[in-house]
């Protein structure tokens, strides 16, 4: 398995792990609005990531190239619905903004963790070889 695929697998697993652990922590220790914000933010961003992965694989794999219009339509629909959901959550004060912001950071934290893990492996491999 190459390094890119390994990072992607790690990010996918870490997304769900952080989402469930963070949600459980928020439900137990924080207010219901904060927990709702974390749940909504985490779900939006994780679903977005998986949909983006599906769209990109469909559009860039040479064996099964999708029409560019379909890719664009999917991209805008996904972005429109994400924005709409966040707008309703914020404008109706359904969730705590801080919880939502932390929930939306799930993917960024996963990618940062994956990068740090690979970097650590790389540094230690070089140290052993050196």
């Amino acid at each position, binding site marked *: 398995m*190459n390094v*890119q*695929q390994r*990072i*992607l697998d790690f*990010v996918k697993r870490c997304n769900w792990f952080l989402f469930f652990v963070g949600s459980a922590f928020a439900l137990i220790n924080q207010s219901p609005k904060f927990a709702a914000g974390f749940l909504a933010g985490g779900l939006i*961003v994780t679903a*977005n*990531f998986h949909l*983006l*992965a599906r769209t*990109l*694989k469909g559009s*860039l*794999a*040479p064996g099964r190239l999708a029409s560019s219009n379909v890719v664009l339509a999917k991209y805008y629909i996904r972005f429109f619905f*994400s*924005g709409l959901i*966040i*707008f309703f959550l*914020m*404008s109706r*004060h359904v969730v705590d*903004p801080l919880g*939502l*912001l932390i929930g*939306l*950071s799930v*993917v*960024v934290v996963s*990618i940062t963790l994956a990068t740090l893990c690979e970097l650590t492996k790389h540094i230690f491999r070089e140290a052993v070889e050196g």
Partner: protein
Amino acid sequence: MEALQFFVVSSFAAALAIAIAAFGCGLAQGMGLKAAVEGIARNPESSGKVTVTMLIGLAMIESLCIYALVVALILIYAHPQAAAIAELLAK
């Protein structure tokens, strides 16, 4: 009058925030996509590696735009000082 000015400036800041973020993220995503498509066109076998790397990059860029959207919406709908300003307006 000053309180009203505060709300006007907040709305303006929100609009400016999302405009700048969308501009930057659009530019960055376009550049990333251009480089990825060029790479795949030169070497079609590398499409898997390029797609995965680009997916992670695009997810990071997109997150920034979503953050900007949330901050803009906070400025409009959930400003931390909104209650205090509303009280000032009522007086």
